[in-house]
């Protein structure tokens, strides 16, 4: 869930590198989805507008605890971390190893923590 769809679209496409798939007007908001640039017929990520007040409480609690809303796999987390830091992205957790996986958590500027991870 995002607090501003226009801002979210900019962040998820221009910063994270997703590609816009659908933007269907739905009154005040839109059915807005993005997809991986490498798999544009794959799973679509809905940038869903925050329109249900109780969900805002849940989202804020997750955010304050640093818990990611979702996670995306990357091929090279060190490179992704450096690239995103260079674009001004704020990380709540720098790359941290956990067995065969390395995890990092970033702020998507729309009310969510997002995890990126690499499995070695």
């Amino acid at each position, binding site marked *: 869930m995002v607090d501003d769809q226009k801002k979210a679209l900019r962040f998820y496409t221009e910063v994270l590198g997703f590609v816009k798939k659908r933007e269907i007007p739905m009154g005040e908001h839109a059915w807005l989805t993005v997809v991986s640039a490498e798999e544009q017929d794959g799973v679509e990520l809905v940038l869903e507008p925050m329109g249900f007040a109780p969900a805002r409480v849940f989202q804020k609690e997750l955010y304050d605890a640093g*818990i990611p809303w979702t996670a995306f796999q990357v091929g090279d987390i060190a490179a992704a971390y450096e690239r995103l830091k260079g674009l001004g992205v704020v990380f709540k957790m720098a790359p941290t190893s956990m067995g065969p996986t390395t995890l990092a958590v970033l702020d998507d500027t729309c009310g969510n923590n997002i995890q990126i991870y690499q499995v070695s």
Partner: protein
Amino acid sequence: MTFYEQQVRQLRDAVYPRGELSRQIVAAKQYIDQHFAEELDLNGIARRALISKFHFLRLFKLHYGVTPHRYLTEVRLLEARRLLLKGMPVTEVCVAVGFEGVTSFKGLFKRYWGATPASWKKSNFRDRAAGKV
């Protein structure tokens, strides 16, 4: 440090062996990734990792959720799908990804993907040609 990061660090310390042992398991998995098409001896991979066979099996499953043998099979079957989509004949795919016999290859393929290599290729190759995939 956030609550989540604390949990990640606690879980890591509780679940995974420290340092070198984890690196050896990762190196073994990467060896499988790079050599899956060859005749691989999983006992030999355990020896390369300087770990006893049973300890290796247990640690591999702890790290990746499957046994090394199952992981190798999955890597081979994923590559088989990729080659079938490129139009390679089934028997050539079988050899190219490291299976010894076509019968066992067909059986495993069907068990994993729900269709024989030939029928899977037929439907997906057609879809790809039609621009659906």
